[in-house]
């Protein structure tokens, strides 16, 4: 089962929840850090024996001796990655989505592929080998998170428990992370900003027809807007994490939820089974 932990708003506690799910699970689990622009799960899981692999994408390379400057490729490219001004095209690799269309429309065969590295995957083990930790990391200056996320997900075995720590927001990197998930936990906080972005996240997972429930972090702070919204929309709240100074202290030392609130371990251990039994399905 693949459980994705997403949020809309950043900083609500996705990694706290995803790490807690992984630590509390009573079976082998794979923790996949899909927040490739700022992966931080490994700070808390401290994986060992890490190996790395490069993330390569293909970008066009123009053979200027063959190019007739017809600009067919530049007209085709919807991302402005190719520009022709009556000249062989300029290539802007950082805008290229590697769709390959330019190569198909080029009538003179002047375009070939070249690999460029946009990131790295680190694969290691935590909790004496029970937790596999796969972390994607996008290179600084690169903007294409989805290919890195796709490669993270190639390491997920079929039919095992997997927790995907998603990026914030509702844009392409989140959609890529949610693709193939069986269930989504939306982590939010009881603030107007938390509620606003929760609504966007709910719209997103409903559009994708994914079952989901909500985790409210720092539940005793703020206002009751999130509780009222979830009640009105008939959205199940699967967990409420209290706001505690001890949690902030543990977090600042790289500690996890159970270092601060050990009594929450049973709930997080049971969440995969609750989902399986359909209790927390919308």
């Amino acid at each position: 089962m693949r459980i994705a932990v997403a949020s809309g708003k950043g900083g609500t506690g996705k990694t706290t929840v995803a790490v807690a799910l992984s630590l509390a699970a009573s079976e082998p689990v794979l923790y996949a850090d899909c927040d490739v622009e700022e992966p931080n799960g490994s700070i808390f899981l401290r994986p060992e024996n890490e190996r790395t692999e490069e993330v390569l994408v293909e970008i066009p390379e123009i053979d200027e001796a063959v190019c007739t400057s017809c600009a067919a490729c530049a007209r085709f490219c919807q991302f402005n990655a190719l520009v022709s001004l009556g000249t062989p095209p300029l290539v802007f690799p950082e805008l290229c989505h590697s769709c390959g269309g330019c190569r198909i429309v080029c009538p003179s065969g002047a375009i070939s592929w070249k690999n460029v590295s946009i990131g790295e995957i680190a694969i290691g083990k935590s909790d004496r080998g029970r937790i596999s930790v796969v972390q994607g990391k996008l290179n600084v200056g690169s903007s294409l998170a989805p290919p890195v996320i796709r490669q993270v997900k190639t390491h997920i075995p079929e039919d095992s428990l997997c927790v995907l720590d998603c990026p914030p927001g509702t844009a392409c990197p989140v959609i890529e992370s949610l693709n193939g998930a069986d269930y989504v936990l939306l982590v939010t906080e009881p603030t107007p900003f938390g509620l606003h972005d929760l609504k966007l996240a709910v719209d997103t997972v409903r559009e994708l027809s994914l079952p989901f429930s909500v985790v409210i972090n720092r539940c005793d702070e703020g206002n009751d807007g999130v509780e009222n919204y979830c009640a009105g929309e008939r959205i199940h709240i699967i967990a409420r994490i209290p706001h505690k100074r001890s949690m902030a202290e543990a977090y600042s030392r790289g500690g996890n939820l159970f270092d601060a609130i050990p009594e929450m371990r049973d709930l997080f251990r049971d969440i995969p089974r609750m989902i399986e039994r359909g209790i927390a399905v919308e």
Partner: protein
Amino acid sequence: MKIAVPSPGNTLESDVDSRFGRAAGFVVYNTEDETFVVTDNNQNLNAAQGAGIQAAQNVALTGADVVIAPSFGPKAFRVLKAAGLKTFLCSGGTVKQTIEDYIAGKLSESDAANVEGHW
């Protein structure tokens, strides 16, 4: 000679737009017959990426020889140079004043992008 200046308006009295790639449009002034045309750049206002590239292409297609703006991003600059345009820096004011300053030789040529992308 044709001189392009980014502007949110459509007259010579309009202000210069502080942004190049995401300017609403360009006023292109022809020094020979002292007329001007306005080129729309609206499709770039909300582009996630590549606005400067597209804007630079739009300007190049007007047949401009010179483009004057308060700033040029790195990608726009690369396209403008590939198109063989001269790039000059101004500090705001109206389109008319900017063009007069250029003709009077008061503006300096820009030999590199002077802002980061998405500044």
